């Protein structure tokens, strides 16, 4: 089943690669846009959830229960759930779609490695994944994109130091995206907002680490996906740009 999933990814990637004139980097970017379109409802849910959480911070009923049950965590949680239900907000709505990205990331990574086939066994596996005609003309794929080899981790050597530029861009764009969609924490003890806050720290570090360690083709996916996410959110006109500055929205 998983292998079928990978095969579908590989075939779509190869088809795009063929259409765009044998440019695998461009194929990954277009593939990411395709993934974004397919996961549009999930992203919309994420944006809606984040916006709902942000609005909730200014809700008087919400603020009142935070104060009233500040010392009774169990009761506070029950009351919070009640408010969530009443207002139709899913407290995990803003971070679940991010976690759902994991299978896509893993599948894409495996697809890139399989498509670029750096070992004989990979190339043989690739032959079993492809259903496109005239594939022998496409293989091997051109793994070069700009200054990168998409099958390998990226680093630009400047004055003798290997600078992981893509990893830094991945971490930065992930941070921006997470912060924009993160609800402002104005209420002490608000666990769901605190959880989103943690995600905005952990996710940039994690994806930055992935970008540093794994094939740079994966970084292209991360960056494209993050930029699209930021644009999608900003288009609603509710982007909280101030939240990008650490400490800008501390609880009063």
């Amino acid at each position, binding site marked *: 089943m998983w292998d079928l999933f990978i095969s579908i990814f590989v075939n779509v990637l190869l088809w795009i690669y063929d259409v765009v004139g044998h440019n695998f980097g461009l194929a990954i970017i277009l593939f990411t846009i395709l993934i974004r379109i397919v996961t549009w409802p999930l992203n919309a849910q994420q944006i809606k959830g984040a916006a709902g959480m942000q609005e909730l911070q200014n809700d008087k009923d919400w603020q009142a229960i935070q104060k009233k049950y500040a010392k009774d965590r169990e009761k506070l949680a029950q009351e919070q759930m009640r408010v969530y239900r009443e207002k139709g907000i899913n407290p995990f709505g803003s971070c679940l779609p991010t*976690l759902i990205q994991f299978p896509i990331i893993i599948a894409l990574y495996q697809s890139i490695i399989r498509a670029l086939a750096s070992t004989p066994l990979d190339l*043989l596996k690739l032959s079993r994944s492809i259903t496109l005609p005239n594939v022998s003309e496409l293989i091997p794929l051109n793994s070069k994109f700009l200054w990168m080899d998409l099958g390998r981790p990226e680093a630009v050597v400047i004055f003798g130091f290997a600078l992981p530029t893509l990893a830094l861009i991945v971490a930065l764009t992930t941070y921006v995206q997470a912060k924009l969609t993160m609800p402002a924490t104005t209420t002490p003890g608000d666990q769901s907002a605190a959880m989103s806050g943690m995600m905005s720290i*952990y996710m940039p570090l994690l994806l930055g680490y992935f970008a540093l360690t794994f094939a740079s083709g994966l970084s292209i996916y991360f960056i494209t996906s993050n930029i699209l996410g930021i644009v999608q959110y900003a288009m609603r006109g509710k982007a909280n740009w101030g939240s990008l500055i650490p400490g800008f929205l501390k609880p009063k």
Partner: protein
Amino acid sequence: MRKKLIIVTMIVLGALFLSACAGGAVRGTSWPGLAADGQTAYLADGSFIYAVDLSNGTELWRYPGTRNGKLTFYATPAITPDGLVIVGSAGTDHSLIALNPADINPETKAPVEAWKFTGGGDHWVAAPLILNNKLFAVNSDGNLYVLDLQDGKSIKEATVVKLKGRLWAQPTTDGERVYVTSLDHSVFAVNADTYDIVWHEDLGGAVPGSAVLGADGMLYVGSLASKLERFDSATGKHQSVLDAENWVWSTPAMDGDTLYFGDVAGNFYSFNTATGKSNWKPVKPDGAITASPLVQDDHVLIATESGSVFAMGKDGKVLWTQQVGGKMYTTPVAAGDLTIVSPLETEFFLAALDANGRQVWTFTPKN
């Protein structure tokens, strides 16, 4: 606190999943390379090169003595006339190493490095060709490196012949020219003395196997365009002489006027170079064929992805089969009365078969 734990767990799991599919210096990164001399089999398999006693299947040594994360081996080792074992690494250090089995380090129990060439730009996948005390080694960076073995040591600066694409197959030679195949669909002929490119032709499909010289003086090459091509070795003029059902991965094996080869769909072909026709209709053993056939006196041995060894008479009739297990992609090697095979996805790394296909011993590394 519990939610924090969930997040951290998810992140660690994600990292583990990706790490698991990143590949590393473990068995299974690709299929192993196998070579043998009179007494010893040399297996390049993942993190180590193993030397195995052909008489009983016991390990004589391994290199390196302890696992080195920068080294990964699956190129077939080459054995020089003076007994050095030369093998390239597909790991991150891109080294081509000459080991001296006659000089074992008492501490590591591994053979000492007679020399090490680190000028390659990418993975070494193919065995080097040894010709007139020169080593012609192809690298995945698209270059042919020529090293001088005259004094038993590699010169530090090899002659670099810039070709194209990933070079995964051992070069072939007729003494005058060295023929190199490339995954970028090319076949190159390089002058063996001046290193000039004599000709360069496109086949329309990647070429992961070596070219082979026929008794007729022509050069034969299989490709992922699913064709067998015949080249005029002097001019590079070529034409397709056989359409296979699927990718031709393996290097064809020559036996007089007959070429034997398989394809990834599992067909096995016998092509007569004198008549330009197939000797018989393709037969289908039981799985994909990536390994080159091993020509014996009265039959041909074929290893398949299904883990079987087929002994096929030269008339196309199966004489015997042996289910070794696992998946076999590596070309079997003959060693005296034995045939050595190296399957993947089995507990053992090597198996020795006698002339009737019976298993004589298996080799499983300790630790």
